[in-house]
């Protein structure tokens, strides 16, 4: 599924929104998460997961073509962690199978 599919679904479902408005809506949703991250703010969505930032330490990189060492500065990386409910949803056994115990160690 791409963003375009998602916009189509929103437009199909809603009787009041035009496709253009559906597009604006979908962009606004991801835009607010992005802007929160830019402010250094975490976004927690119940039943889905959370978006936060992780730091990448500065390190020495290498230009693969010349072999020359170049410094790579410290930077922020967007990170997503799926919520518990969502993780469980992904691992639901098909209905005809018996459920397995879900005592996994946390990773």
């Amino acid at each position, binding site marked *: 599924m791409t963003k375009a599919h998602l916009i189509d679904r929103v437009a199909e479902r809603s009787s009041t929104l035009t496709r253009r408005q559906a597009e604006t809506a979908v962009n*606004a949703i991801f835009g*607010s998460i992005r802007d929160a991250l830019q402010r250094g703010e975490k976004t927690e969505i119940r039943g889905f997961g959370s978006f936060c930032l992780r730091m990448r330490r500065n390190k020495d990189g290498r230009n693969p073509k010349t072999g020359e060492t170049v410094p790579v500065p410290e930077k*922020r990386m*967007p990170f997503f962690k799926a919520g518990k409910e969502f993780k469980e*949803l992904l691992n639901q056994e098909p209905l005809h199978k018996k459920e397995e115990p879900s005592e996994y160690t946390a990773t």
Partner: protein
Amino acid sequence: MRKADIANHLCETIGVSKAEGMDLVEFVLSSMKLTLQKGEPVKIAGFGNFMVRSKGSRKGRNPRTGEEIAIPPRRVLTFRPSQLLKEHVNS
């Protein structure tokens, strides 16, 4: 930031009621969840890709007791931020 804050932002941008904004956010999230549950990736241009990866079984250890336990095969969700998002959070 929470779901309600996203919904509020949505009300302001497209001029819908708070309830409609909340509905829209819920609908978008559940569509994404359903797609991913089927094992299909969700690709959001300018934001990133969500995809489901299957992991094989492996042996783990209870860190408290040292007891060895089998970790069954499972599916995990990964998010790869797009180049644009990475640049955005560093600007």
